[in-house]
């Protein structure tokens, strides 16, 4: 799979308005800055494409029903539920997952804040929480705690690390470092 990875993120892709499938079709996905050529059925979700075809298993399948947020990734910088998004619909768009958040060995400030604040227990929901949390700041939806509560409410955490998640988000919002 990795052998199909190309250096450039942007590739010429077919017009998605054209009917493709059933059966495997060629789909180009740009994920974390690398382009991938996949042969998948048009009904394959972005989540399954990431996990099962590209071995990017950081994104989690908590429900596959759009109800838990564990599968949150960004498409063109906006957070989406990858379980409810078809991979084929992400052609010509830039997908970013938890694996593409750190800058090399340097953690994204939100990742560092999650560690500093112990913002999780089992960690299963965590990649989704972090992708949501970073997007939330960009959206300007972290003005105060009730704002954070509301705009993070799509990401369930059964361990209920919510108070520490809020602390981590506040820290990054206020420019406090991860320590």
């Amino acid at each position, binding site marked *: 799979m990795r052998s199909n990875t190309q250096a450039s993120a942007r590739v010429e892709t077919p017009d998605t308005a054209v009917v493709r499938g059933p059966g495997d079709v060629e789909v180009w996905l740009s994920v974390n800055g690398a382009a991938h050529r996949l042969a998948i059925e048009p009904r394959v979700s972005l989540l399954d494409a990431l996990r*099962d075809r590209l071995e*990017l*298993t*950081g*994104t*989690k*399948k*908590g*429900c*596959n*029903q759009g*109800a*838990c947020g*564990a599968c949150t990734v960004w498409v063109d910088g906006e957070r989406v539920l990858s379980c409810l998004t078809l991979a084929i619909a992400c052609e010509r768009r830039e997908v970013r*997952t*938890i*694996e593409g*958040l*750190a800058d090399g060995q340097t*953690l994204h400030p939100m*990742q560092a804040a*999650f*560690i*500093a604040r*112990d913002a*999780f*227990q*089992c*960690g*299963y*929901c*965590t*990649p989704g929480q*972090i992708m949501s949390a970073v997007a939330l700041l960009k959206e300007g939806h972290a003005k105060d*705690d009730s704002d*954070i*509560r*509301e705009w*993070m*409410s*799509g*990401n*369930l*955490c*059964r*361990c*209920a*690390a*919510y*108070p*520490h*998640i*809020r602390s981590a988000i506040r820290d990054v919002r206020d420019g406090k470092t991860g320590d």
Partner: protein
Amino acid sequence: MTITSQAPAAEVGAARKRKEDARLITGQTMWTENIVVPGMLHMAILRSPLGHARISRIDTAPALREPNVVAAFSGRDVADVQGSLPCAWPVTAELVMPAHPPLAVDEVCHTGEAVAVVVARDRASAVDALAAIEIDYEPLPVVLDLEAALADGADLVHTDQTTNKAYTWIFDSAQAGTGGAVDEAASGAEVVIRRRYRQQRLIPAFMEPRSVVVDATGDQVTVWSATQIPHVLRFLLAVGTGTPEHRVRVVAPDVGGGFGGKLQVTPEEMITYLASKRAGRPVKYTETRSDSLLSAHHGRDMIQDIELSARRDGTVLGLNVRLTANMGAYLGLVGPGVPILGAFMYNAIYKFPAYRFECTGVFTNTTFTDAYRGAGRPEATYAIERIMDELAVEVGLDPLEVRRRNWIGHEEFPFTTVAGLTYDSGNYEAATDRAKQLLGYDELRREQAARRASGDPVQLGIGVSTYTEMCGLAPSRVLGSLRYGAGGWESASIRVLPTGKIEVVTGSSPHGQGHETAWSQIVADQLGVAFEDVEVLHGDTRTAYKGMDTYGSRSLAVGGFALVNACKKVIDKAKPVAAHLLECDVSDVEFADGAFRVRGTPDGGRSLADCALAVFAAHDLPDGVEPTLDADDVYDPVNFSFPHGTHLCAVEVDTETGRVTIRAYVAVDDVGRVVNPMIVEGQVHGGVAQGVAQALFEEAVYDADGNLLTGTFVDYTPPSAADLPDIVSDRTETPAPDHPLGTKGVGEAGTIASTPAVVNAVVDALRPYGVDDVPMPCTPERVWQAIRNGGGQS
């Protein structure tokens, strides 16, 4: 290396960042679902759409013609080899235990029961091919209501049984010699309060769906499973399948939450094993969320009939508890024992003179029930803390005052309760005072009075819960006397590597609790090594072959004890080596602050690493000194541990809409000495959230035909960030006197304490409307109904 007398800072008590974390936030974890084994196939399970039916015909052959399918089989194909899933806790000798085949053979007894499987080259093909399986069901009567199930002539949950009653288990303090007779207490009482509470059915709903990979292709069977109990699973898999135990390896990789829900030997694990055997290939099964909610075991689901007798001054004279507990269609691994764990906790923190407990376990055509966070203890705490509030109202006292008049004073420990447990320590006064202060209790009571006087449509309620729990499960002898199938010990091994780095092997099996961090902190202090120099290994029966796993807030209370013992043995083994290096007599060597020194000589000490290198070379060790510092310990606790605390909750109830808003929540817990306050705080937050969820949000609901109506996260609603209050959490610290670290356990405390705190607050808000109960979960509709009906139970 020569050491000076600088003492290293203590690790225990520090809010160390968790070692586990870096992997988790970068997506580099190894969940079972991520595991890929060469040649691995994928399995999908066909589940019963009916609550109760006979399978009159089943044909899996058509599925074999579907693309990519390698195997398909039903219960009939494996009937003579699949055995019956184990129940390890037959609470009475007369217990009725229906066979529990992993795949149903002739009869399905709940919706979601597995009936057939397809094994294919990819998951989608396996799922698609399920539709080709032909199956005819003859519907049978569905038994759902607990009391109807026990009536004469009731329809049967299992047609091959003669009753729906699983067992009756009784504790009577008069018979046990731990107290008086409840009937006498009631007959002489000035006040007798009777209530019926309903513990709704809950679903553990861990975020990581269960997943299992089995490679049974060679002599060695390897199982990777999202389980809390790899050791128990290995034992029961060996016994159940006839595979020699040394040929079974179970690995619990990263496990995404359990809460008791992964304390099970599951049908799915056994079916995946059968599939791997039949296909001759490794096989993976990962459940969907709906399969998980439908078929992973449920929790709670009991009717509690409580009778409390007391004097007018609020002194309780006797407590009589009659439970009817829903087992579901089968007996889970420890399912029958769950209500029995609660039996010892109904008397809670109080000095009741007489107590009787009777529990009847009942079968219904529903998913089987088993442990869910707290397992029996939240139910007990809920009932007693609810009825203590009713007593307070009845005798005209503040709910805290009525509790104070009955609780065990801090100077009375150790105290043997009417249920026969000996509580080692506690200070209920201190925790309660602290909680009152943090909440601003008296001020809120004044505000409540003002709102009541003004007829404010938004009423204020204050809920109290003073709880204790028995954790650190458990002394093996006690488990034996309760007919539990295994012991309650835990093991720890320390490997001292030649460079002085440490590997710790623990029999605990964490799934989010941060053991790697806490264990490292403890070992760092005990052995005088750096936190970073400790690696904690767990969850693989090949490296950690001996263990009793993680549940019941037991890891630190029991496993931590073994860990400290093992460290002490390492030090004892290192002393003669250090003496040799220091050229002194062993009796002159002392170990303190991470160094071995000649007594009275502060400088020139030797570290454990020096000793490790010396035994590695072993060139000139004194005679009789074994060239290793490694040590093991298996610890069997002599008693439970008894964390306790006071939780206070203030709610606002909109009497026009029934909406409940938690305005403030204070948790003061005494979990003994704390190894890592950050981890403890996280456990309290998570525990409180799950308890609040029972009070306000969650309920597993079946319709009249036995269909689960709450099979997605849209219908079964674990709370989101928006649903939960800020929690003010604080601690008092009464060290456990018999534990070398003074720790007690924290995993379940919040869940046990919070449910009654919230419901007491809701009912307290509605007292002016004549309301004395709101059934859980206290949804707006139920609250509104309670107000409209203007009453409750009395």
